[in-house]
């Protein structure tokens, strides 16, 4: 566990670009997109300004998670090439400032969500922040190779929150959307962690490829891809979506399973030879954007 040093009096006031970088803007894009799709897929839409505020709150909460994650993991980040240049491990920002920023942003996002939409959505937003920071970052990530599996629930909240912000209640479709992102997360992150395995090993994070080896991870990736395909196509035969989503889901999941099968067939153990893993990682990002885009198109386009 990293030692917590609460202040660095020698530090300059942080540059605003570093404060912005704390929010992990690249991760935020996918979170905002999935939250927006959950909101737009709902049967009723709140006024535009309230819809905008709901998405803004999801983005702010994601930023808070990023900041608190970086505050807690500063020593781990310093050990990994991929993360060593972040503001905290690079020494460009005071650690206490990151903590205050993260807590303040998270509390503000929950309060604003409750005031603008409803308190069920605000409660879900608070739960997602606490789940990501306490359950995933602090508890699971440094302890178990199943960290991504359970922790994936944190990233699965946004479409559910978007839907609840619009309607004020749960329904079968947003719960399935939660399940889709939950099942999508392990193959997505394990594909990444296959070719940055040495980074995770250096930081002592028990990612599955580090603990169980590449072949076991490849079998798990393939298994989760099959489960994802079932969950992603399910809304169509269940009558929760129409054919635009259904056809897109079938096509996208055939692609996902084919990419996962290529990963399964790969026997390489060196990152340079992990072309199939890199392709699956890239495809998985595109997959989620197109699948959720099709969900919204299905809701709004006449067929």
């Amino acid at each position, binding site marked *: 566990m990293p030692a917590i040093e609460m202040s660095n009096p020698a530090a*300059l*006031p*942080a*540059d*605003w670009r570093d*404060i912005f970088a704390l929010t992990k803007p690249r991760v935020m894009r996918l979170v905002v997109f999935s939250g927006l799709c959950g909101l737009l897929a709902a049967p009723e839409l*709140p*006024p535009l*300004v*309230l819809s905008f*505020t709901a998405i*803004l709150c999801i983005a702010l909460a994601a930023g808070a998670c990023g900041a608190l994650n970086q505050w807690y993991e500063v020593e781990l980040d310093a050990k990994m090439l991929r993360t060593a240049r972040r503001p905290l491990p690079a020494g460009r920002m005071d650690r206490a400032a990151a903590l205050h920023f993260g807590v303040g942003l998270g509390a503000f996002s929950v309060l604003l969500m409750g*005031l*603008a939409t409803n308190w069920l959505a605000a409660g879900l937003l608070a739960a997602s922040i606490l789940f990501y920071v306490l359950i995933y970052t602090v508890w699971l990530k440094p302890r178990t190779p199943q960290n991504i599996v359970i922790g994936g629930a944190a990233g699965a909240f946004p479409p559910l929150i978007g839907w609840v912000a619009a309607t004020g209640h749960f329904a079968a479709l947003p719960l399935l959307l939660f399940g889709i992102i939950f099942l999508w997360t392990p193959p997505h992150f394990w594909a990444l962690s296959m070719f940055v395995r040495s980074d995770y090993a250096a930081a002592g994070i028990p990612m599955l490829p580090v603990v169980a080896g590449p072949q076991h991870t490849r079998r798990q990736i393939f298994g989760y891809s099959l489960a994802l395909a079932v969950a992603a196509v399910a809304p169509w035969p269940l009558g929760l979506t129409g054919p635009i989503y259904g056809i897109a889901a079938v096509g996208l999941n055939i692609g996902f399973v084919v990419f996962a099968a290529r990963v399964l067939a790969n026997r390489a153990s060196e990152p340079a030879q992990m072309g199939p893993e890199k392709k699956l990682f890239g495809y998985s990002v595109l997959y989620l954007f197109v699948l959720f885009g099709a969900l919204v198109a299905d809701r709004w386009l006449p067929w």
Partner: protein
Amino acid sequence: MKLEEEIVRRQRDRARITAWLLGGFVVLLFFITIAKTGINW
């Protein structure tokens, strides 16, 4: 001297951004209030 200039530059940048964000928040709160009270323009 150079360090002091850098500190002042960063503080000014942050003050400017904070002012814009606060202004935006006030405007947002105004429109949220309008939407929540159901006033149609």
